């Protein structure tokens, strides 16, 4: 029992790391632009399909393929921001952005269905089906690699945000748009780059998700509902909160999974509802300012 529980916790933390990566992108976009990118889930699936194409047709290794897919996803993010999100104005901007990105979701879903059909696929490589045997635990390589990738990417994101000039202007924009503009920060550029980075991390998320789950164009809904739950739980716009909530979610899910696989996801959502009842702003979120 103890062994099983420990195993579940390790699995949960590893899986949570992968979700953390995708959720950090989502919360970064929200923090900087006040936009909730509902399309994040389907973008992960899009990235997974890109990796699938690269590995099937060009026999490119999944992780090596990231060198291609990450810039592509970054570009898609910038295009979405410049073409659609930037046009939204007025006091319902955040809500409108939600609807606009929902529309983007439907469009991408339609394109994916048209190009790949409804059949489920998985990403394959030698490390997908093999495990590392340590201290009596079998740790699938793909989870280890995915977790390591997540750690590297989050660390890189941290360096970018807190140790670079761009990160400084980005955080300034997060704190106060108007003031940031007054001191000469090009808000439009920061916004486009932030959206691009937030979407760019879905490339790595797509590899990790696609190698551990069978997916089709419909899988985006399941993903986005989890990601949304993670960022609300962590507190919207809080990067540390997203990390903590993702790990928590992975662990809760894996532990409940021991008893009842069908209900493991529901328990997490239930925890979310409980947290919201007592702390509407999430675990690490700031209290909402007076509504404009």
């Amino acid at each position, binding site marked *: 029992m103890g062994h099983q529980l420990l195993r579940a916790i390790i699995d949960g933390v590893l899986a949570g790391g992968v979700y953390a990566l995708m959720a950090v992108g989502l919360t970064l976009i929200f923090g900087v632009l*006040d936009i909730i990118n509902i399309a994040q889930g389907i973008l992960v699936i899009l990235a997974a399909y890109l990796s699938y194409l690269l590995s099937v047709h060009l026999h490119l290794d999944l992780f090596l393929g990231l060198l291609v897919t990450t810039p592509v996803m970054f570009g898609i993010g910038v295009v979405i921001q410049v073409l659609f999100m930037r046009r*939204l104005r007025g006091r319902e901007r955040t809500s*409108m952005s939600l609807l606009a990105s*929902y529309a983007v979701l*439907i469009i991408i879903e339609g394109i994916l269905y048209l190009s790949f059909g409804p059949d489920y696929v998985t990403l394959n490589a030698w490390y997908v089906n093999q495990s590392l045997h340590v201290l009596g635990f079998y740790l699938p390589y793909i989870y280890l690699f995915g977790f390591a990738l997540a750690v590297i990417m989050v660390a890189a994101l941290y360096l970018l945000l807190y140790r670079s000039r761009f990160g400084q202007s980005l955080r300034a924009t997060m704190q106060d748009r108007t003031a940031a503009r007054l001191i000469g920060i090009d808000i439009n550029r920061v916004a486009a780059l932030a959206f691009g980075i937030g979407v760019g991390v879905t490339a790595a998320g797509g590899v990790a998700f696609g190698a551990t789950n069978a997916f089709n164009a419909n899988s985006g809904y399941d993903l986005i509902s989890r990601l949304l739950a993670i960022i609300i739980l962590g507190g919207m716009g809080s990067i540390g909160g997203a990390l903590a909530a993702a790990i928590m979610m992975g662990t809760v899910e894996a532990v409940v999974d021991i008893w009842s696989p069908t209900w493991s996801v529901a328990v997490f959502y239930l925890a979310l509802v409980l947290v919201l009842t007592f702390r509407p702003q999430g675990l690490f979120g700031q209290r909402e300012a007076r509504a404009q």
Partner: protein
Amino acid sequence: MTSLPARGKGLVAPGPIVAAALLLAGLIFPLVITNETATQIAVDTLLFVAAAVAWNLFSGFTGYISLGHAVFFGTGAYTVGIAAQDWHVTGDLEFALLPLAGLAAGLVAVPFGLIALRVRRHTFVVVTIAIFFIFQLMAFNFSFTGGSVGIPAPFLTWAPETYNNPFYYMAFALAAGVALLAWLIYHSRFGLQLRAIRDDEDRARGLGVRAMRVKLTAFVISGVVTGLVGALWFFFIAQVLPQYGFDPIFDLTIALMAFIGGFGTLWGPILGALALEPVEQVLTLRLSNSYASELIWGTLFLLVILFLSRGVLPIAGEKLTAWRARRERRLAGEGPPPGPAPPRGVAPTAASTPADTPRPDAAEQAGSPAGPGPAGAG
């Protein structure tokens, strides 16, 4: 300020004549058009009119955009389905179960609202989405919901050529009833309180509006109606599957209908549903490929959000008042200035008219919180 009542009467509420004409047209529709495909599209459209008006009654009036109304839709559908199955209800008797659907949806709306309405704006939207997914998950996983197989409706022994007509009139009655309810609420003190919350919740609260109670009441009313729509839809389709009972596209569609017609107006959701649902149905029927219709639907949706987000009605209203103002100025003998740009900027009379007409929100903002204030504080 003087032009506002005229705009309100002329466009936001086209008044009894248009309403009566629509009612009459709606009543005789199945008598004139007997094509089964057409009446089927009409039933779907009326169901969406009811759902969009119900959604707007909460989201449009309060400004809290809910993307979780499919919860009520699915709850209504599943409630009557499970009740009919367990109590062995057959044939026409199934319609006696309709009140149960409203009741169940209302019962779900109370805790849902108590949790979700504690947060505002975008966080509210996200929480409604999360709660929606919990319900979809439950529908898939509980044994009494039939899992992924869903639940069939009792079989109706009606003649196929007139099968749609009773559904048509029930959907019509529901749509007309909700529209009337929305009209009554809009013009009541309760409706004023809802709009005060939309414009500035904290100030409304400060003026004595019991915000939580008011929001929750609207949410429950909206939920009950959506539950009834779900139950009727279930009887009409004769089956419910989890992915269609709890369908994210449903949430989006009713929101889109309200937005395209005019968010928060009385006629907006009606017009939006009447315009969009037939298009959607025809798209689905014509294109055998449902993915292509999804693609077109998404693109249409995006275009509406980007270019018509304030709604056809409000935009048309502004255009009309601007045009009226120009005409009045012309009739007053000023005539169109020969060099339009420079004098308009200087002349205070000419500049003031277009400046205050396109901003109905501002006038409302100033007016509405004062309305419920004294009454609520007493």
